[in-house]
Structures are given as structure tokens and as C-alpha cells.
């Protein structure tokens, strides 16, 4: 009987072997989830963040750079100090801070580093660098934050911040991951792809306590990061800085454009904030604070604020009339104040006089001729056709829709079409007398300061413009900027019609904006007043200079500062002088603007 038993035992032995091998086959070969779990365990993917591209001004001066900041890290396990007094003295901290941060670090981990002193300045870093070696368990960790040598152009440059959940979702290429910093506004956002560079990845092995055990497979799978591309902005740092100084304490916008290229020389939104505030660890707190301020410093007025264009629009009306042949320089209308209010000037006036004196009744009558051309015997119909026709011509001046500047959030303003009035009054129930406010740039019409500056550029260029933009060169190469900024937009008005306009604008300065006049520098300008139902009117001025070879076109808005001839014209004049001459010869005017008492 016992003869079978050795066989039973052998069967048992081999059965055990088979069971073990089967189970091993299941977990080693069939089930591959263990490999992933093992990788999660031991292989840490460390992203090597590239340096973000720098931004220079048009003259090669730095606007944005990356500032290394140093955190002193402590590994509690290795850390010990013999002479505490000397340690505190060297590192400039209090005993309480030392104890507190050490305890916090211990609580976090015995073997992993925690910050002991955050954001050490470069100078302090230099001081302690040599002593670090005496203190085991301490080392410096370098991070970098965006930094601005001058606290200017905050709105144009924009800021970076942690990527939002929504952005992550839209990132179909899966470039970004949680916690990455991306451009959230301004140039930082528009040129995110250029600025961000290419992330690198390092795979390193860690043990069960998370301690670095060297590169995985000797770095075979690692990739190096590629630094972001540097951008050259169109902004003139000196001009921007000067403009911000002038706009201090005011609300409004200044946009200066180089007419020949569409390059934005300065773009000021007042009130502004120091861009250095929106960097680093305090971003969230500062952003919330700025966002809650009643003065809305985060609001980018040059591209987002919309006002009726006011008197300045009369130039556009003149140009449309001239091109259509409805107006000729000799066309004369009486300053009939029963149609619309005006101010004292000789009457009747021809076109030149109308521009020079900004005569409201002249444009009331001229606009009627532009609109009602008797293409239909029905006045209502005729007005509708005329309005839509006129609107198409106005749109060519870059009005009524966003120009497409290279920052996000640009508003388009509004030039009304028949649709609007049909909706308000009903079809066939409105005519010229309903819409005549448009003749003098009032009524249902809105433009942004950027569009206004672009208008000035069109006047300077005699009929064309390049879409205003903030980046002049990508990686030092001007041809790498987006193609739309190298496209010449014609407004559909012959250059010959602009001479009269330019001369009238130059003359107008002596009439409406005496303060703006500069010796040996001919400025062509036009004042405007944007009506404000909530308080004092907004002071507006557009200009370009020098008249015969325009180097700068500018629009200035100063909110609640009354008539355009004072605040806006003075500011524009100083900006022009600063840009063209490089110095200010009229300290009194500068004082006047800085003082900011424009209502009297």
C-alpha cells in the first residue's frame, strides 16, 4: 500500500511547482499592471522647465527677464548647527524662525528638503553662499520668476500664472500639466508658444523614502529643455515710462504708433500697476486685491475701453465725402446752430475751416449729403442704403471691429448699420434726422483708443495702415512676426485728399489746442470730447508729427478731464516731443499735466 505513496508525494511536489509557476506567469507575463505600478513606485519624472523668453524694447532695452530667486532648503536628517548664535547672524534670521521652520520641515519629512528661508535676494545669497558648506543639510534651491527692470507697460506685457483647469482641458497636445505657468494676458499670452520654450524631462529613480538614486537608465530617456524665444517689442521703454509718469493719478489711455509700420511705441492704460506685483508666490493675493479696486487697474483701457469718437470723427467724414466727390475743398455750409450746437467761429466755412473750427452744423449738412443720395425716392429707404454704404467705408478705417493687435481682449467698438435702427425704431421708421448725431462722431458709435491712434496713423500715412502690434521681431528676426502685421491695409481714400486734412489738422492746433504747439515741430492734431453722461466729459486728442514726415501717431484719452484741448492735447504734445526730440523743453506744460487740474 505504501508503494504508491512516494508517487503521491512526487505528484504533490510537481503540483506545487506548477501552481507557483502558473501564478508567477499570471503576474509576470499576463498581467502588465505591475510594471506600471513599479514605475510609479520608483521612477520619478522630473520636468526640466525651460527659461521663458525675454522681452526687449525696440531699442534693445530689457522689459521682462527671469529673476532667479533662492530658497534655502533644509534636510532635517542631515542638519545640525554647532554655534546657533553665529548661524542666526550669518543667515539673518531669528531663533524663533529657525525653530519654527525646522519643526515644520521635520513635520513634513525627516529626509526630504523643505524651505527654511524663502526668496533670498541675490545679494544675500552671495553673502551666505560661502558659509553653506559649514552647515550640512542646507542647500539652495533656485527658481525663477518674471521680473521687470522698470515697473512699466504692465497691460501690454501681461502676466503669467498657473494654468487653469479649463486651459488644461483645451490643451489637446497635452503640453501643459497642472501647476505649469502660462501667459494669461498681454504679450505673455499672445506669444505663449514662442516664449515658453520646450520642456525637458528627466527620469530619475527614487527609493521607498523618495530619495534620489540617480538617473534612470543613465538618462537614456531624458530630454533637455530648450529656452524660450526672446521677443523684441515695438515699445519704446523711455516713451512708455514718460507716458506713465504723465498719466500718473489719472484715468485714461495713451497709444502711440509709428505710422509707417503700425508698431506701437507706447501703450498706457491708467491707472496702472507695477507688473512686479503679479509675480511669484503672491500672485493670487495681489490679483484679487487689484481686481477689487474700484479704479480697475487690471482693465486694459487702450484696447478695452470704448467711447464715442466725437469731433475727431469729422476727419473721417471729410475723407469719405472727398473720396465720394460729395465734398470738395470748396464746399461751404453755414454754421447753422439751429441744426446742432456749435461754438463761435466765422461762418460760413469751407471744408478746411470746418475741420479747423470743428464746426458741427457743417458736418450735419455734409453727412446728410453723404447719406441721402436719392438712390431711392423713399427717404427712409434712401437713408438705409446710404447708411450701410457709408458704414462699409468707415469700417475700412479699422473701426467697428477689432484691429487684431497682438494682445488678447481687444474690443471692436461699434459702427451702427441699418440693422440697429431697424431694431430700435422699426424698418422704414427712421431717417437722417434720427441718425444725424453720427455726423459729429456722437450717437450709437464707439471706438477704442487703439482704433483712434490707428486713425491718426492713417491720417499721417495718407490712407493706409499696418495693423498695430507690439512685437517687432521674434528671436531678433523681424520677418518672424505674424504675417498680418506686415500687410498694408488701404482705407480706400486717395492720398491726394489727405493734404487738406493734414494742413487743417496742423492749423487746428492753433485754434483748439494751443498748448500742444511745439516750436520747429509741426504737429497735426485734432481735439475731441467724448461725452460722458455720468460726469465730466473725457478729454481726447489725436495727432501725428512731424506733419511732413510723420514718425509718431498718437491718441490720448484722459477720462473726466473735460475738453480735449487741455489734458489730452498737452499730454500728446509732451509725448511727441519726448519721442522726437528726446527731451522736454516745456517744463511748465509738463507741470501742468502732472498737476492734473484740467477742469476750470
Amino acid at each position, binding site marked *: 500500500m505504501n508503494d504508491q505513496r512516494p508517487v503521491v508525494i512526487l505528484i504533490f511536489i510537481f503540483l506545487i511547482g506548477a501552481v507557483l509557476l502558473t501564478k508567477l506567469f499570471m503576474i509576470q507575463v499576463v498581467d502588465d499592471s505591475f510594471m506600471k*505600478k513599479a514605475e510609479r513606485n520608483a521612477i520619478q519624472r522630473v520636468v526640466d522647465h525651460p527659461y521663458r523668453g525675454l522681452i526687449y524694447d525696440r531699442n534693445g532695452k530689457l522689459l521682462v527677464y527671469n529673476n532667479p530667486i533662492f530658497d534655502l532648503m533644509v534636510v532635517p536628517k542631515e542638519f545640525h548647527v554647532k554655534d546657533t548664535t553665529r548661524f542666526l547672524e550669518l543667515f539673518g534670521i531669528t531663533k524663533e524662525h529657525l525653530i519654527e521652520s525646522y519643526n515644520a520641515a521635520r513635520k513634513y519629512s525627516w529626509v526630504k528638503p523643505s524651505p527654511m528661508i524663502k526668496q533670498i535676494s541675490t545679494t544675500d545669497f552671495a553673502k551666505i553662499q560661502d558659509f553653506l558648506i559649514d552647515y550640512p543639510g542646507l542647500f539652495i534651491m533656485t527658481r525663477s520668476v518674471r521680473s521687470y527692470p522698470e515697473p512699466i507697460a504692465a497691460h501690454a506685457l501681461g502676466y503669467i500664472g498657473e494654468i487653469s483647469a479649463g486651459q488644461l482641458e483645451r490643451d489637446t497636445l497635452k503640453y501643459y500639466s497642472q501647476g505649469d505657468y502660462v501667459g494669461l494676458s498681454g504679450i505673455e499670452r499672445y506669444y505663449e508658444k514662442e516664449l515658453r520654450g520646450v520642456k525637458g524631462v528627466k527620469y530619475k529613480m*527614487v527609493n521607498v523614502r523618495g530619495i534620489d538614486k540617480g538617473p534612470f537608465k543613465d538618462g537614456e530617456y531624458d530630454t533637455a529643455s530648450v529656452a524660450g524665444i526672446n521677443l523684441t517689442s515695438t515699445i519704446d521703454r523711455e516713451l512708455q515710462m514718460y507716458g506713465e509718469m504723465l498719466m500718473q493719478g489719472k484715468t485714461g489711455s495713451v497709444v502711440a504708433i509709428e505710422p509707417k509700420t503700425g508698431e506701437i511705441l507706447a501703450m498706457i492704460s491708467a491707472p496702472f500697476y507695477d507688473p512686479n506685483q503679479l509675480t511669484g508666490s503672491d500672485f493670487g493675493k495681489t490679483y484679487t486685491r487689484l481686481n477689487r479696486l474700484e479704479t480697475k487697474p487690471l482693465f486694459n483701457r487702450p484696447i478695452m475701453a470704448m467711447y464715442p469718437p466725437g469731433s475727431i470723427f469729422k476727419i473721417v467724414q471729410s475723407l469719405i465725402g472727398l473720396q465720394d466727390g460729395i465734398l470738395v475743398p470748396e464746399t461751404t455750409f453755414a454754421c447753422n446752430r439751429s441744426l446742432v450746437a456749435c461754438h463761435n467761429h466765422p461762418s460760413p466755412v469751407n471744408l478746411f475751416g470746418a475741420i479747423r473750427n470743428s464746426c458741427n452744423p457743417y458736418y450735419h449738412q455734409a453727412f446728410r449729403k453723404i447719406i441721402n443720395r436719392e438712390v431711392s425716392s423713399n427717404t427712409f429707404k434712401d437713408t438705409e442704403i446710404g447708411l450701410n454704404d457709408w458704414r462699409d467705408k468707415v469700417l475700412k478705417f479699422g473701426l467697428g471691429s477689432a484691429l487684431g493687435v497682438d494682445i488678447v481682449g481687444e474690443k471692436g467698438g461699434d459702427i451702427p448699420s441699418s440693422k440697429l435702427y431697424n431694431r430700435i425704431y422699426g424698418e422704414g421708421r427712421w431717417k437722417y434726422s434720427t441718425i444725424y448725431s453720427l455726423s459729429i462722431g456722437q450717437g450709437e458709435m464707439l471706438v477704442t483708443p487703439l482704433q483712434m491712434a490707428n486713425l491718426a496713423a492713417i491720417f499721417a500715412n495718407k490712407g493706409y495702415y499696418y495693423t498695430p502690434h507690439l512685437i517687432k521681431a521674434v528671436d531678433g528676426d523681424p520677418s518672424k512676426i505674424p504675417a498680418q502685421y506686415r500687410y498694408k491695409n488701404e482705407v480706400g481714400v486717395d492720398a491726394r485728399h489727405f493734404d487738406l486734412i493734414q494742413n487743417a489738422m496742423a492749423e487746428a492746433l492753433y485754434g483748439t489746442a494751443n498748448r500742444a504747439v511745439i516750436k520747429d515741430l509741426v504737429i497735426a492734431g485734432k481735439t475731441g470730447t467724448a461725452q460722458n453722461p455720468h460726469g465730466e466729459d473725457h478729454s481726447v486728442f489725436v495727432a501725428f508729427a512731424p506733419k511732413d514726415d510723420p514718425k509718431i501717431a498718437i491718441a490720448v484719452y484722459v477720462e473726466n478731464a473735460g475738453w480735449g484741448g487741455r489734458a489730452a492735447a498737452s499730454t500728446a504734445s509732451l509725448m511727441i516731443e519726448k519721442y522726437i526730440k528726446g527731451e522736454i523743453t516745456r517744463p511748465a506744460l509738463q507741470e501742468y499735466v502732472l498737476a492734473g487740474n484740467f477742469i476750470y
Partner: protein
Amino acid sequence: MRESDIHINRVDWVTVLLYFALVMIGWFNIYAAVYDGQAEKSIFDFSINSGMQLVWIFTAIALITVIMVADHRLFENLSIIIYLIFIGILIVTPFFGKEVNGQTLSIGFGSFRIQPGEFAKFATALALAKIMERPTFDLSKTKNQLVAFGVLMLPVLLILLQPDTGTAMVYFSFLIMFYREGLPQRYYILGLGFIALSLLSLGIKENIYIVFGITALVIFLILLGKKSWQRIVAFSLIGLGAIAYSYSIDFVVSKLPEHQQNRIMVLFNPDLDPLGVGWNVTQSKIAIGSGGLWGKGYLQGTQTKFDFVPEQHTDFIFCTLGEEFGWIGSLVVILLFLAILYRLVVMAERQKTRFSRIYGYSVISILLFHFMINIAMTIGLFPVVGIPLPFFSYGGSSLWSFTVLLFIFIKLDSSRAQQLGRIN
């Protein structure tokens, strides 16, 4: 003068070769388990475990030499004395031994320490062989059963006092030898039924299914045989007992010390507490499972290298093998174990004395049990029990005790020609 007792050409070299193959693979794996790519220490470095294991290997070779030159009659003649000596050491261990984590496993002086529980295995094997050697000794007789179990249970009780459940469990492997020597089959059927019922009761939450299963089985067994009242009553009573047991086992488990309870429950649900009790099993499975078919390559393992698997050079040494050499490596090692076990069965069956055969089967029993339980626990088939993988795991006591155990049998086998045939 009598002839030398060394019979080189009668030594079973196949077994010796398998032994050295396993020891060397084990040694390489111990180096892999403690290898630190940043420290770059040699496998011979005495400051790391592989260097120390080399010392154990050389001393094991010294032990082998002593065993091989000794007189083969010595083991039989001294068996009871050896047994009593180790029982004595086991008795004093709790008083003079070194306490670690509440366990007193080792005894010795200074850095020289042995774990008597490990060595008592071969001593018990010798004693059992000596006692069961008599031609009149019949394991189907209750009196003989009691004697054999008495010899077996004495060291078990002493080891449980240390307490070392794992090592104590190993002694139950002698049941395999008892089986070969004629312990009636019904004990095994009842025992296996008991184990199956325990596992099912613990594994299946709804005890009602087990009640149905037992009832069906009892009815089936009653219908199968002759339908006498005694049988019906006997089977019904066994069935009721089984049901009662099934209901009470959860209660019994709840009375176990917590760490043992957890070890049992984790077997059924490793995700119960992956960072706590389940950690060992989870990490061990990850290490082995991530090896794939061919493994990550020697010294390329990440899981065992970076301490994710605890006790990786001792009880969990199989993880290093599984991770770095994959299924193929596991296959080779398991085949080596199966080969040595097969060879030992063949050797045991060719013995001319009952003493040698009983001893041979004791060796088979102990090796098989260690091999089975150790690997099963690393892959989550058995609760975590602290017992080493023979010849593989790091440690002097472990390597020496297995070496002595095995080579006494090789010695007995090589001398079988001189022994008088007394096979029953």
C-alpha cells in the same frame, strides 16, 4: 583499523551540484538585493550582506567537510542526544536569548548567534528517524502516533514560546514524511478538508453558501455508500460540525493577535490596506510582476533595490530574482528546486535502512515546505510567514541548518552500501 568512511564516488553529485547552483544563484541575488548603484560596492565587500553571505557559504562548506568525513553511524547513534541538546537550547533561549521585536529567536555570544529553531529541524528529523526505525513501529497504531507526535510537538511548543509561528509551522511538514511512513490516509483527507473549509469560510463572506455546499456534500456521501443509520448519523454530525466550524472561524480569527489576523485577511484582499499590512505583499507582487518574461536584467531592478520590498535579502529574496530575471528566471530556480526534491525522493527510496529513508523524507518535507510557503507568500498565495527560502535567503543560521540537514542525508546515502538492510 577500519576503512575511511568517505566514499567520494558514492556521493550523489547531482544533488551536490543542485545545492551549489542554488547557493550561488542565491548569493548573486543577495548582492542584487543590497546593491546600491551609487555606492558601487563589490559583491565581496564584507560591509554588505553579499560579502557576509560568502562567509556563511565558506563556513557551510567547512560544515559539509566535517559531515562527509564523519562516521555515518555517528548520526544514528547520536540522534537522540543531538535532539535533546537542541531541546535544551530551546528551553534556555527565552531566558538567555536576545530579544528583538518581542521575539527571542537567537542565542549565542557577542556577534556569534544562532537560531536554535532552525537547527532543531534536523535534530527532530534525526530523532524521529531513530524512533520510527524499529521494524515494529507502525504509524497506524495510536500509541506509535502519539510517540511520533510527541517528539515532533516538543520543539514546536518551545518555538511557539519564542514566539516564532513561522518556524513552528515548518514542523508540520513532517506530516509528509509521516504519510510516506504509513500514517492513515483519512487524517490527511480530514486535514485537507479542514483547511479547505477554513479558507472558504474566510474567503466567502456569505456563510449560507457554505452551509448549502456542506449539506449537498453530506447528502451526496450518504447516498453514495450503504445507507446504514450509523453512517447517516456520523456524516450528519460531521456536516453539522463543519457548519458550526464555518460559522465560528471568523470568531476564532478575531481572537488571534492582530498582526496574524491581518496577515490572513490580506490574503483574501491585498487592497485592504496597501500601505499598511498589505504593503509587503503588494510591493512584493509589484517587484515580481514587473519582471515580465525576461526580467529587467541583473542589478537593474528598481523595486527591490530601492527598498520598496521589506526584508528583501532574507524572506523576500525571491522578489529580486522575479524582478531581475523575470518568469524565465523564476522558472529556472523553481525547476532547480523541483529537481533537487525529485532527486531526494529517488535517493530516499533507494535507502537500505528505514532510518535513512525516514531522515531523507524529513529533508524532503522541510525543503518542500519552505520552498512552497516562501514563494507562495511572495506572490500572495499564502499569508506572510517569516520563513526563509532554502539556500537562497541571506543568513548564517538559515544556510547552515539547511546545509547540515541536506548533507547528513547525502552522507547517509553515500554510505548506504555499508548499512545493513533493514527495510520493512
